[in-house]
């Protein structure tokens, strides 16, 4: 179903408007996860599904799909962010993922932890968004370009 764009012009127009809104809401959910329900997972899944909507509606030639396809190849970047934050804690002298040991001058331990939570949530969101898109690409490689003889 990725092979062509959606035939209805209403769906295409509406999605063009809707996708940025969904993404802004996803970012809101992501960054206010410390104060509201939500956070990395939900934000990431919403980002991912907004991109999936774009793929399904605009078809394979649309710039959005092309960009998304490039993004889907960079699987693992989100985890690198997460692991890098954890690794910085190791370098700072604490245990793995001990954000209180992040070496940021002028910040007390609770603020460092708060910062660590935001950074790692970004990592989670990026990874989940990218992977969701990647799984959808894989699952839709069925007819045509996939091999049919196993």
């Amino acid at each position, binding site marked *: 179903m990725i092979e062509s764009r959606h035939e209805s012009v209403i769906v295409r127009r509406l999605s063009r408007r809707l996708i940025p809104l969904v993404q802004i809401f996803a970012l809101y959910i992501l960054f206010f996860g*410390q104060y509201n329900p939500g*956070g990395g997972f939900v934000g990431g899944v919403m980002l991912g599904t907004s991109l999936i909507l774009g793929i399904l509606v605009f078809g394979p030639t649309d710039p959005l799909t092309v960009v998304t396809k490039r993004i889907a190849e960079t*699987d693992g970047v989100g985890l690198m962010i997460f692991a890098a934050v954890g690794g910085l804690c190791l370098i700072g002298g604490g245990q793995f993922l001990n954000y209180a040991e992040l070496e940021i001058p002028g910040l007390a331990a609770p603020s460092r932890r708060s910062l660590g939570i935001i950074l790692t949530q970004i990592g989670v969101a990026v*990874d989940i968004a990218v*992977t969701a898109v*990647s799984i959808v690409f894989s699952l839709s490689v069925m007819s045509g370009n996939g091999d049919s003889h196993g």
Partner: protein
Amino acid sequence: MTYSFELPLLILLILTAGGAIVVKDLLSSVLILGSYSFFLALVWAWLGAVDVAFVEAVVGAGLATVFFVITLFGIDPRDTLIRRTPPPIAAVVSLLLLGLLLLYAANDLAAFGDSASPASTHVSPFYLENSLADTRTPNVVTAILMDYRALDTLMETVVIFTAGLVCWLLLRRDAK
């Protein structure tokens, strides 16, 4: 605790679950499963688990349904016909035993909503009391998820990452 709001939800939950199982058309049954997830999210919101409800609504009712539907569209199954055969005796018997074990084990669980239960008194008060001071994060669930038990979160992200790789490995043979 009164169940007046929850009972209808639970009944709807079981009805939608049954619908997803019984309905013959695969696409319909997948969509009914989406509504099952949605009712589940409502039940959890009622239980006070707003974060879980949110994730279930987005992941269960959203992403899981997207995966199901894309698979169904991609493979366009011709045999959505579902046969029914008499249930194997062994499966029924072991299921009954399992059910008895579940009910037996439930006897010594704390009563529902008991704020003096071990689950609510041993470790969890620490999180509630200290998370704001420790992490400046009012949402205690986020604080535990991303800080106190951050390793679990890292690893579940790895689970998702692995799933992405697995789908790639199994389905995309024409990679450059």
